[in-house]
């Protein structure tokens, strides 16, 4: 009776240890990978900074990050249905953000969004090589 009880407590201890290790494993992994791999974590999208000669966007960065699609839809409605063609649009976006691959697609790919804007609207590949890659939100 007594032997089986000690055996039980030993197994319990082992089970608890294994469970704790299992629970903490992802945390430990991310800590270790963060310490060794640093900023090269592939889950973070990298947004290309626009050409330095452009000082600011049509709206502030926070608004553009979360609501650029609303703004684009609004512009589209004015442009297509009311003929107000003096507003900003893709034409003015691509003046600063020259590369679709290094700007738009960075976030869209990381959240698995497949947009079909660029099947019809021209958004060119960059004509010059910009080395000013910055981490997202570092502006």
């Amino acid at each position, binding site marked *: 009776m007594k032997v089986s009880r000690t055996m039980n407590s030993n197994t319990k201890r082992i089970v608890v240890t294994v469970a704790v290790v299992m629970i903490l494993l992802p945390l430990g992994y991310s800590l270790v990978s963060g310490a060794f791999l640093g900023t090269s974590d592939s889950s973070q999208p990298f947004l290309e900074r626009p050409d330095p000669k452009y000082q600011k966007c049509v709206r502030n960065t926070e608004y553009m990050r979360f609501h650029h699609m609303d703004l684009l839809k609004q512009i*589209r409605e004015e442009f*297509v*249905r*009311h*003929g*107000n*063609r003096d507003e900003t649009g893709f*034409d003015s976006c691509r003046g600063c953000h020259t590369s679709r691959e290094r700007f738009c697609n960075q976030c869209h790919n990381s959240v698995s969004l497949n947009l*079909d804007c660029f*099947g*019809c*609207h*021209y958004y*060119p590949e960059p004509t010059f090589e910009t080395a000013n890659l910055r981490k997202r939100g570092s502006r």
Partner: protein
Amino acid sequence: MNRRKFLKKGGMVLSGTVCADGLLLLTSCNPSETTKENRLSRHKWGMVIDLNKCKPECTACMEACRQENNVAFHGDKRWDIHWIRKVGIQERHSENAGEKMIPMLCNHCENPPCAQVCPVQATYKRDDGIVIVDHHRCIGCRYCMIACPYNARFFNYKDDPDWPNKSYPKRSHGVAESCHFCAHLLDQGKRPACVDTCEKIGVKAIYFGDLKDPNSEVSQLIADTPLKRIRADLGTEPKVYYKGL
């Protein structure tokens, strides 16, 4: 105050308020206040094509349209799209049964059947009379192609890799399209590509202008010369006129 007087006065007060509210409502429903002045509604675009000048073998307007609007051309008549095309027409029951080649494009009807049948309001008439497709809304049902009496509508069965004019978007596979009088150029104050080209090559068979302006070239032509519209009997009120049809 007895009961009779109270009811009388109450009735007067009640009817007074009802009348005042009615008056307020009537004044707020005044149409001159609710309709907004639209920038587009100042014009009404129309076209006159002089068939005496138009040469049967010339395709300059078609080429210009393709280059300006990225109209798909695959070299296969099943999939080719023509916003403006040459059509041979023949008058029935007449002695001079010769075929006549006429440039055919969207007639920009005043009562467009394509816009009436569109289930998602992708095709609509702008305030300047141009019938235009919002390709973002088009679901590709092809009702407009069936409804159009001029066969001016085409469907994108395939994507075309060519992209001659990068400043104007292409249409993707699965939407219907037709001529829009180069609305993107009109909004910039320019003229449609076919009109410009026809003048540039020295033919000037296509006249384009504002039908609301009585002094415009088109209005004067319509007033002075006998012009015909294709299938005017249908009541669609097309805005493309032909001289010498």
